[in-house]
């Protein structure tokens, strides 16, 4: 049921992405907008660094007491008239949700944006059970029309141009008059708003994710800018929340702390437009709101990450700042990563969830530039965690043979300074002689990975150490 990962084909995916002109055009929007907006928001808030540290400490506290906060949360949801369901795997989560929908005779299901629902392949499960699943976040709606997955965790359609969106609307919205102008984003938004408004009103069940679950009150919190999450959960008879187990926080104040770093890191807003705390179903005297409130808590591999070197990853609040600042993501976009979560956070999380055999490329495809870690609102040491995956691969002999062999040869010389000196002096003197005219090599055997794209500067001559010792001897004389 879960999305089939193409992560093992990362290199081919990346190659295609690099040669996709529309994608490259669309990616230009990520590189500048998000970074500038975040920077401005951070500069406006002198307390931001302190907030990041407090946010990290809070999440660590939660992870160390996860069982106890989940128990408290569960108790308080129940007390407010809601129902909590637990799911070990994707399949179990899908089955639980499909059964809830069926028990209410649902035909149409609206959905707010939820990455864990992508992870478990929920839409396919709902459709397979004969119901219609409608994504209501504008970006998610667009990619659903295209049969694609999100390429970014907060901006799912960031890989598309407005011309592509217009094409999709004209293909699917058969009511559209050919003469109607849809060339600008605002016209596309108006069209989508009109179509989705009716879907909201017609839906039997609304499914949202959760940014946080508050143990103290049994509330789920979602943040959106569009208001789609609120229409999704307020209009149908049934509201289902799907969330992974690490989303729980102790108190409302703790949610407030994380809210202060979430939107700033994500879109550079101080707050998202709509931050909604939902607690149980509608009250007896309420004139609107859902009659039933369910929460499906998904583990899907997370409990196994606790207590390992990858535990830090469970602090992630899914803001997307790491990918917004990643030079590799900027180059290839999100789909090349081949599964649900792209960018640096995906490079760490994906091998945890689908196995390093399939996700092994991702933690390797990083320059370790460290920009992701420097902007992470909960200070996840992403390069370090990617390195831990490389260690696991190395231990399990999954590192590619060429790299392994090259490393072995290098290590042999590096560990024998005498041999190293002899070998490098001979090699460098020869290379320097070969490259003496141009000062560089346009191609060189064994260095094709390098010289295919750029020249290799020629060495100056003898090694520094040899020249230094020679000089020392001369001065002494």
């Amino acid at each position, binding site marked *: 049921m879960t999305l089939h990962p193409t992560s093992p084909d990362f290199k081919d995916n990346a190659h295609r992405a690099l040669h996709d002109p529309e994608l490259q055009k669309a990616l230009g929007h990520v590189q500048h907008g998000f970074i500038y907006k975040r920077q401005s928001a951070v500069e406006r808030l002198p307390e931001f660094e302190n907030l990041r540290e*407090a946010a990290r400490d809070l999440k660590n506290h939660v992870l160390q007491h996860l069982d*106890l906060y989940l128990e408290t949360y569960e108790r308080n949801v129940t007390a407010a008239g809601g129902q909590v369901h637990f799911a070990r795997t994707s399949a179990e989560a899908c089955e639980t949700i499909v059964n809830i929908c069926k028990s209410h005779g649902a035909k149409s299901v609206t959905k707010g944006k939820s990455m864990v629902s992508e992870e478990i392949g929920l839409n396919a499960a709902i459709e397979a059970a004969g119901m219609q699943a409608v994504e209501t976040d504008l970006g998610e709606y667009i990619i659903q029309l295209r049969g694609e997955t999100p390429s970014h965790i907060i901006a799912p359609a960031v890989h*598309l141009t407005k011309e592509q969106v217009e094409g999709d609307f004209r293909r699917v919205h058969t009511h559209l008059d050919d003469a109607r102008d849809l060339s600008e984003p605002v016209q596309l938004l108006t069209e989508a708003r009109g179509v989705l408004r009716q879907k909201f*009103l017609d839906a039997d069940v609304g499914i949202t994710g959760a940014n946080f679950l508050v143990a103290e009150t049994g509330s789920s919190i979602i943040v959106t800018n569009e208001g789609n999450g609120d229409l999704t959960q307020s209009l149908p008879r049934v509201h289902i929340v799907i969330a992974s187990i690490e989303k729980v926080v102790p108190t409302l104040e703790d949610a407030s702390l994380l809210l202060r770093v979430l939107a700033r890191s994500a879109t550079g807003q*101080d707050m998202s437009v709509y931050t909604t705390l939902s*607690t149980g179903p509608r009250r007896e*005297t309420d004139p609107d709101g859902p009659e039933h409130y369910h929460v499906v808590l998904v583990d899907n591999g997370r409990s196994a990450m606790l207590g390992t070197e990858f535990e830090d990853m469970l602090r992630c609040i899914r803001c997307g700042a790491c990918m917004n600042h990643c030079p590799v993501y900027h180059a290839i976009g999100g789909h090349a990563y081949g599964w649900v979560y792209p960018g640096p956070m995906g490079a760490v999380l994906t091998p945890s969830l689908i196995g390093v055999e399939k996700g092994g490329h991702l933690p390797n495809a990083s320059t370790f530039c460290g920009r992701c870690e420097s902007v992470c609102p909960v200070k996840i040491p992403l390069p370090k965690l990617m390195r831990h995956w490389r260690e696991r691969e190395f231990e399990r002999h999954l590192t590619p043979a060429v790299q392994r062999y090259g490393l072995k040869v290098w290590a042999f010389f590096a560990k024998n300074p005498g041999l190293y000196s002899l070998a490098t002096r001979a090699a460098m003197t020869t290379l320097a002689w070969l490259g003496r005219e141009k000062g560089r090599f346009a191609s060189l055997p064994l260095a094709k990975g390098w010289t295919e794209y750029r020249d290799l500067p020629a060495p100056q001559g003898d090694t520094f150490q040899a020249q230094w010792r020679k000089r020392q001897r001369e001065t002494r004389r």
Partner: protein
Amino acid sequence: MSARDDIFSNIRRSLGVNGKETPRRAAVTQRLADTPRGPIPARGQGSPAARLATFITEATRVSASVVVLDSVQSVPQEVARFLQEAQVPLTLKRGSDARLADLDWQAAGLDVSSGPSGGSDLNAISHAFGGVAETGSLVLLSGPDNPVTLTFLPDNHFVVLSGADLVSDLDSVLAKLRRIEALPRTVNIVTGPSRSADIEQTLLLGAHGPRRLHIMVVLG
């Protein structure tokens, strides 16, 4: 073993705990009782006048419009003025909040009805539970006084905020929430009108929710 029990035992095995340890339980109980606050931004702090100024600056930054009124009696006139200027029919949906129900809407030429919205209302009005200077946010509670659909379905959303309910930061309004008898079905923290930047990162107002958010801060 049920999925629930399995997950709890996996978590405990990974953490190397059994769930019964007194210090862990005590740490959790204490945090839930103490509700410690994280760092609170200085931005929203200050005298009531400074708070109001910050609130107006921040709400305006996120494309809401704000006016300050001397009396709640001026609300109908202000709503009428706004709608006339926007060239929108003078209709309005409200909840049963007494602070709004008692106003003389007719005198302002407004056609007012009450109840939840079914999606056909152009305009709606809510009374806020609180306002947050730090971010220019409004806090709205769902219920018969303020049906949640009024906050999301109409094109133009009017919100009355009593100056006395304007606090410096989000945590202060949350503390106030904790003092009410029971949380409503939803607490809606609203910061500006609805928007989306999903198409080419172009920011557009009025994605699914209101295109305009007009805040009336009532002093006195």
